[in-house]
């Protein structure tokens, strides 16, 4: 599945032992993917490979993080891996939706790759439909976290200190039986599946998600990436929290072309 890039650095560039894998779930508002774009762009991460998979809709374009003519001509596809060894960080960016019935095989393959590449832990950035919140969730912070039992032991205390809110479970049969609670992440894509599979496979995984709706999700992406930064400290926190992140050039024209003059 993982195909390393030929960078002349040999296998060193694809050794992720002990690294943190950061990845998005394709979810409502694409918030996880936008936040991941911000991380890759700001930290100027190097592409080290891609996933050769039949589970995602194919797409290709030129380098979405291009800053100048010289670096704008590298092809970029739907699932690519970037690395920053100085921070022991490896990032997987997913750019297209899953093909019908293929998201399960993708999750299986992904988690076995996580195990075989010996990543220390996985951080999944996601989002959930804001309109599904209950009365209590409507108040306070829209950001939530989840930890698999293995990671809970390691960082559970830190989450308490940061005053983070854990994602609440909901009644399995609302109105009928309120005692049985299950995890429900509507609009979260593969989030729930990856989380439950990681729990059962003993993988250390954290999910960071934001309640949001479809629309201009750039502010949601900033909120999520700042939330991530409170924990992982990827960039120095500044007073103006949006200025520390670099917006990639591919975010131009997100809402289409300008108005054609012929319209008037």
């Amino acid at each position: 599945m993982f195909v390393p890039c030929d960078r002349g650095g040999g296998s060193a560039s694809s050794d992720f032992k002990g690294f943190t894998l950061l990845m998005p779930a394709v979810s409502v508002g694409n918030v996880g993917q936008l936040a991941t774009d911000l991380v890759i762009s700001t930290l100027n991460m190097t592409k080290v490979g891609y996933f050769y998979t039949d589970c995602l809709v194919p797409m290709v374009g030129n380098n979405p993080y291009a800053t100048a003519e010289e670096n704008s001509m590298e092809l970029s596809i739907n699932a690519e891996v970037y690395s920053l060894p100085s921070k022991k960080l490896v990032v997987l960016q997913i750019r297209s939706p899953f093909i019908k019935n293929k998201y399960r095989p993708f999750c299986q393959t992904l988690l076995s790759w996580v195990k075989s590449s010996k990543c220390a832990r996985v951080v999944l950035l996601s989002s959930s439909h804001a309109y599904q919140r209950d009365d209590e969730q409507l108040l306070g912070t829209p950001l939530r976290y989840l930890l698999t039992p293995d990671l809970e032991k390691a960082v559970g205390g830190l989450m308490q200190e940061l005053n983070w809110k854990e994602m609440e479970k909901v009644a399995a049969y609302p109105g009928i039986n309120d005692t049985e609670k299950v995890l429900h992440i509507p609009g979260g894509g593969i989030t729930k599946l990856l989380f439950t599979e990681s729990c059962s496979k003993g993988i250390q995984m954290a999910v960071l998600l934001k309640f949001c709706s479809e629309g201009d999700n750039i502010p949601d992406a900033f909120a999520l990436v700042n939330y991530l930064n409170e924990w992982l400290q990827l960039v120095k926190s500044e007073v103006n929290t949006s200025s520390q992140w670099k917006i990639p050039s591919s975010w131009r024209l997100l809402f289409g072309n300008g108005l054609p003059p012929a319209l008037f």
Partner: protein
Amino acid sequence: MATFFGEVVVAPSRAGVDDEESAEEAREETPEDREIRRELEKKREVDVLWTLKSGASTESSADEPFVCSKFIVAIGHNAAAFLSSFILDSVCWEVVGVAKLWNEWCRTSNTTNVLPTDSFCLFYRLISDPTVLLCQCSCYVAEDQQFQWLEKVFGCMRKEDLQVTILSTCPVADYKTQESTLTLPSPFLKALKTKEFKEEVCCPLLEQPNIVRDLPAA
């Protein structure tokens, strides 16, 4: 992300997984479900049949991969028509293969004597240089068939020293630019190339944030 005016949203759900789909998957698959799924998968299989020198048709996977130096693939009605009008003729090119598939949008026709309005996917070889192959694919290859098409077609050819050129068209409405699309030059050509492609490209490269999807991307 919100859709903007003119964007055609193909995916039913941005989350990538419909809630109904995940609920369906959650319950155990019965033998009948498995049977139905298998039948559907069989129906959606892509078959690539090559006609060898001897004239006999054979399954693609049976034989040794053949040598190919240049492979030109035209995807979509416009690109296929371009090849029919300017490149293909029965004197210099011979049909050497066909891909057959079915999906909700089209079924490829059975004959190799196709009309321009048919859906088809044919492979031709240049008679004077049999290592030059051409593919005219005017049928729509669905998302779940694209990878299969790719593996079955490229699986038959040797990939060393192979140069692949893909011709395709996209609607101008999909092109993202600061300027007005009315003032774009005609013909409006853009290219994407791998870093291994060392020759000169005959037109400018596709700028961010534009992308290519579906079979040309695959």
